[in-house]
């Protein structure tokens, strides 16, 4: 019994609890992220302030500017994916119910009030 007590004192018999830290959840580009403040609302706000086109004769430089605008926004929103990959992921999200209703809402916001009235 003496040796047993000694062993107990050494802590051999005590069960060691192995706790593994749960892995950090992977960041996903889902509809919640898109609809959050850093997502599409930010895009719309930024577009109002920054997106200006030079117009006729500058088509290609305008295109470059437009693409950069989207690229920077996506880099802020979801830094780990490349531009084209991220675009494809966003496009895929557009088929979700939540996104679709949000999209319709944004479009309706843009519609002139009077015509909405006429239609309904």
């Amino acid at each position: 019994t003496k040796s047993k007590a000694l062993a107990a004192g050494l802590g051999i018999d005590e069960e060691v609890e192995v706790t593994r830290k749960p892995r950090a959840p992977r960041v996903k580009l889902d509809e919640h992220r898109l609809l959050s403040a850093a997502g599409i609302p930010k895009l719309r706000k930024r577009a109002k302030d920054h997106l200006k086109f030079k117009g006729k004769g500058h088509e290609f430089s305008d295109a470059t500017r437009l693409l950069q605008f989207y690229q920077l926004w996506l880099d802020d929103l979801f830094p780990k994916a490349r531009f084209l990959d991220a675009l494809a992921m966003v496009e895929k999200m557009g088929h979700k119910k939540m996104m679709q209703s949000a999209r319709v809402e944004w479009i309706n916001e843009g519609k002139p009030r009077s015509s909405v009235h006429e239609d309904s």
Partner: protein
Amino acid sequence: EFANGKKDVVDPEVRAYVSSLVTALGGSGADEEGRYILGDDALACLRDLKRWLKLYDEKANRFDVARCLAESNLVGGDLLQILAAWPENEDENRMKSKIALACLELLVPLTWPLSNDKKEMTVNHHRHIPYLQIAQLGYKRSIVNFDGARILHTAVRCALPSMAQDAGDRSTRDEGIIKLLLYFIRNIAMIAPPPNVQYEGDEAEISRSATIDAFDYQDIFQLLLTLSSSMGEDFNTQDVIVMDVIFHLIKGVDIEKLFMDEEKVSNSKTDELIRLRKKEAAMLRSYQMHAPTRHNRFGAMAWIQREDSKRTTISGQAAVTDSTRGLAKMDSTKKFKPPHRAHKGETGPMDFDNPVSLSVQATKHLRTFVEEFLDAGFNPLFNHIRKAIDREAERIMDSHPRQFFYLVAWFLEAERARRRCKKSDKKQKPEDVDSFALVASVLNQEMFVTLNRAMDKTYEEKSWADLSAAMKCFTQILLTVQEMSESPLEDDQEIAENILNRIFYEETTHDRVANITRTYKDQGFGYLDSTTELSHNYLRILEQYSKQNVDLQVRSRRRVRKKKKAAREAGEDAPDDDVIDESEGEDESRAQKMLHERKFDFKKFAARFVVQGCVDTFVKFTSYYNDLKPAQLKRAHRYFYRVAFKQEMGVMLFRVDIIHLFNKMIKGPEGLDPQSSSYKEWEEFVKQILRRCFKKMQERPELVVEMLFSKINSTAHYLEYGYEKQTVTTT
């Protein structure tokens, strides 16, 4: 067990039996001046070997004997020597012809295509098939390039007595021998290095060119022509094997190159070299422009100032000079890759989308064969096979319809190429023009029924390679008929008119074409090419036809159903002919009305190609722009032009990834070659599209968000026109 501790892969006893048989077969020795001398019981040995293959390998589903035979060099060392020792003037020698036949009976199973069907493979298959695939390449090399004699020709001689008999008089044995010969030729034509294996010998010795040259030299083309031209008379069940042989000869061959003059070929080859060098130089120049001007440890570091006082640092000179390249650099350092699916295309012997190049000699031989085949063999052979497919004959395997449609498409295109060739050769008088009778057997109503059924079935079963072949066939039929309608012969015109009317009469056909185009997903480039080609030509020819024929009517399914339902309700039997008779009282005003409706209908039909699915299909196709031929680029250009300007739904193209693609095509890096013929029209088109896009974005700021997504139809309509679709009343 070997000394080094490795186990032999084959049962040693089996190996001992088999190799003793091979040794007993015969051999060459110094005292015979190196000639090959048959063993005393050679015939019995050959038969024993055959029995081994049959009763051990086949029955137990193993490849042990085949492996032993490959290791003991039976084919090159013995069988070919024996066949070579049967000279042409000794056809009457019974013993020798018997032995030759026995050799052929061994050659056929040894060269038989090895199936790579993962589900049915055993451990043993996995062990032996890679070895046997390489061994078969060796067999082909020695058979095709054998110096002493014409091996393939000798094989034909084995079957000649059987073939000479009337079809009715042939015994089962005779039929078997003919089949054996044809399978042998098929196997030789089919053997090619497997897609994932690097062949270590001289590729030229087993290439398609070598096969074609050998077939020409050994009169195999003559045999194929004889068989196909008398199909249905002297020959019957051999049709599918002949087709198989021809398929493996011509799959992937570029028709345009085939029908070029020799002079032109060499010219075009030099031209091509110059063109390719120029392209390469342009490519290098564009790299040079972006290449660093200092050594790679110069260590420049730049940052991009972003919003919210955020900075992104980028190393290298790129970012210093211009922001586009800075951002590209930032993008390229990202490691994350979203999961993606592998494509479902076919690789292996049945793949017909892999282009092959032929030597000058082989091109000449093949062209001669193709022309003779069109003149004599096309109608009998394909008519016969079409009938067999229709009644689902027992010999028709799964792969045969695919081969059939592919071959029909290929030969129709070849026929058109030949006509072009003739036309440019010398100014022809109208009375010298040939009619299209040479290919008439695939332009009849039965063929359309078969084709339509095949397209429906393969689409439902998702067998994409089959569908791709059927679509190619349909495209070529359309093109041929269109050419026919422009023929100076009145008969041809009339027939063409008739055919087009029949093709376009069925609304189900319209639906099918639109549906297939809409639903592309990961089927590989070959399928993508077939789909876009079909929808391009279908739209084009239908548009033209509906303009010319004011009273074009369409049989729609819905109408028929209504009619049937009404009939059933009335207690009658459904009428057999669903044709809606409109010929009565068809005066000018009615015709005008039909024209109006039809025109409206064509627009409606074309509108079905403006949906997101179709746009995505063509975008995917265009994304291969650097590998597309001018005709293919034109196809994509016409489609987008139709979407944006004819249908006025440019909104469908306003998506960031599409804009990115268009911009990249013109402005690079790695864009279209500015010297190429298609560059100009693409540049103009992209410019127009971009201009419209920016205008629209200013008009409707909400497009900024919608640029990211596929549009829903109603939304797209609103974005384009500024009002909802429902409010429009059709007058």
